[in-house]
């Protein structure tokens, strides 16, 4: 699964966005190696909530100074609709937020195909409830630094009894920077115009900043006019928080059943993902893995689908070709840049031991922050159209082989000459454990929230 880009050098390009006001998590990749923790907070008193916020703000990292060697780590903060309400944001402002954000992710389950195992009724607490108010992400380079930042977060709620931490999840990098399925992750993200980030070949043309941060023109030349007031939305954005559990043994077992050799297992796995385990893309390495290609940031994204329009190298249904089609839909009327988001992913849990084919009941998987200014046309579009539909690539109702959750026979089609191969009966490899839509404000907006007038307070 594609997530944040691993940094190799500090950025040299000069940013034109207000990077000192935009949270680091929006524009910057997490460190590597990394460890950290997500905390979810419930606010039962608006005054105490704003006091906590006041104390936290100095530790929230902006995108201009997020990985200075002197800092032990960084902290990101975002609010659900219920959270903004609990902090006493005025009604006129609350009403100006987009509908999908106000409803929350659980209410969008039918659009997102969060059904069956993935239905909100199966989610972990507090996902899908009105208790989830504030989400904090703490990123650090080692355990000691993490404790330092967590201690700061703890002090911010000292003597505030109406502030409760209701959920915690530790995360850390798996060996080799792999995801639980064993694939190198964090390989690709869209290139945000004016962000000052490193650009490697294949990152595509820069996408207008307004697609990812409010306050700047987007791909349609429009600058966001809501939510109100302007001070709240400027340099803010939205994110879809998704927690996944990965069924690694089921994945390995299925590959074993479908293949007649270890090499064929690896090929089928790569066909499903669109890359080999090393990260080498199928388009550039169609027959076997090429670890040096996978590790080379200047080559592992330098591809498109122009010479693979029949999907013979990378199947139409492959995960990376679905969620980021690059030029694969060139013959259709599809404005691909309207449907991009930034992926900030982290892994949790221990890897399943190599060669193990039986489930061990351990929780392992990933948490993704899918970030963009237009939840509906970005996250919701990609999830409902490109992940859980196949019509756009002429594959009927076939879904994404890795993250789909079709309730009927799950298939995966591998184009091949003289005749395609279609796999049947794919078990579900990824379960949604929970999720929510959050608003991630800029630093000035955080200060505005912290200093809201008391008369707007909603008390319980």
């Amino acid at each position: 699964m594609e997530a944040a880009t691993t940094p190799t050098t500090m950025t040299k390009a000069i940013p034109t966005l207000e990077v000192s006001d935009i949270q680091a998590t929006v524009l910057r990749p997490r460190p590597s190696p990394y460890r950290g923790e997500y905390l979810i907070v419930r606010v039962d008193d608006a005054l105490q909530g704003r006091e906590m916020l006041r104390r936290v703000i100095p530790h929230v990292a902006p995108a201009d100074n997020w990985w200075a060697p002197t800092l032990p780590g960084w902290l990101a903060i975002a609010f659900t609709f219920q959270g903004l309400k609990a902090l006493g944001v005025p009604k006129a402002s609350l009403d100006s937020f987009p509908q999908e954000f106000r409803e929350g992710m659980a209410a969008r389950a039918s659009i997102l195909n969060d059904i069956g195992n993935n239905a909100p009724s199966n989610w972990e607490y507090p996902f899908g409830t009105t208790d989830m108010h504030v989400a904090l992400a703490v990123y650090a380079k080692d355990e000691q630094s993490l404790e330092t930042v967590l201690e700061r977060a703890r002090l911010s709620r000292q003597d505030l009894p109406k502030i409760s931490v209701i959920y915690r999840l530790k995360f850390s990098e798996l060996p080799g920077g792999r995801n639980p399925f064993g694939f190198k992750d964090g390989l690709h993200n869209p290139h945000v115009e004016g962000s000052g980030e490193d650009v490697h070949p294949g990152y595509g043309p820069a996408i207008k900043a307004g697609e990812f941060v409010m306050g700047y023109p987007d791909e349609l030349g429009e600058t966001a006019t809501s939510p109100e007031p302007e001070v709240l939305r400027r340099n803010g954005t939205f994110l879809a928080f998704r927690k996944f559990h990965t069924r690694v043994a089921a994945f390995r077992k299925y590959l074993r059943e479908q293949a007649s050799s270890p090499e064929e297992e690896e090929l089928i796995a790569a066909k499903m993902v669109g890359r080999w385990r090393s990260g080498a893309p199928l388009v550039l390495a169609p027959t076997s893995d090429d670890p040096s290609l996978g590790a080379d940031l200047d080559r592992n994204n330098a591809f498109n689908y122009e010479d693979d329009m029949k999907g013979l190298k990378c199947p139409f249904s492959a995960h990376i070709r679905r969620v980021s089609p690059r030029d694969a839909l060139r013959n259709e009327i599809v404005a691909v840049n309207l449907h991009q988001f930034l992926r900030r992913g982290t892994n949790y849990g221990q890897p399943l031991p190599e060669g193990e084919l039986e489930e061990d009941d351990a929780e392992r998987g990933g948490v993704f922050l899918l970030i963009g200014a237009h939840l509906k046309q970005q996250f919701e579009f990609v999830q409902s159209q490109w992940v859980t539909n196949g019509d756009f690539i002429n594959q009927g109702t076939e879904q994404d082989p890795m993250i789909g959750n079709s309730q009927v026979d799950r298939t995966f089609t591998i184009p091949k000459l003289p005749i395609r191969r279609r796999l049947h009966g794919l078990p579900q490899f990824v379960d949604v454990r929970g999720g929510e839509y959050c608003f991630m404000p800029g630093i000035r907006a955080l200060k505005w929230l912290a200093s809201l007038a008391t008369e707007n307070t909603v008390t319980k």
Partner: protein
Amino acid sequence: MATKTEATRETRTDSSAPGMRNQGLVSGQAHEFAIILPLKPGGGKRMRDRLTDSVTAGTQALDKMGTLHDLRFVLFDNDTRVIFASTYDGGFEQYIKDFATLVPDLIDNEFQDCEGYPGVRSPQIWNYIAQYQSEAIVFYSAYPNVTVKQVWKGQRVLKAFEELLDEASS
């Protein structure tokens, strides 16, 4: 056959996430859309002349959308009003912004003679559609679960199969 009472509907009221407010009736994954629009003075004739002249160009672009089963423009009331009616696949609505971005001229060419038409790129377009859209009372699709792309693919496969049979028997 879907009727108004059994159709799935979603009310959308926010301005920040525009979409069709009245979804029309649904049969399987097929959707119906109908809108009755007043025409500017002389607009009926202009629309008739322009659309019949540009059928080929329009068809090519509509083919690329790959989600519209059919559409028609019917002038009535002495060319003072027009009915636009269409059947489309579920995905179509999701791509409206893409069409407005990539083929705005095609859409504006079709609707420019309608009274008050703000242009497909205008933020007012959704209010305009909501003002004039009329939901069907009955909607029938003979193949409610087959998309445009599946119909095309089926045709290609059938053609290839017939050719194979011809080759085998010659």
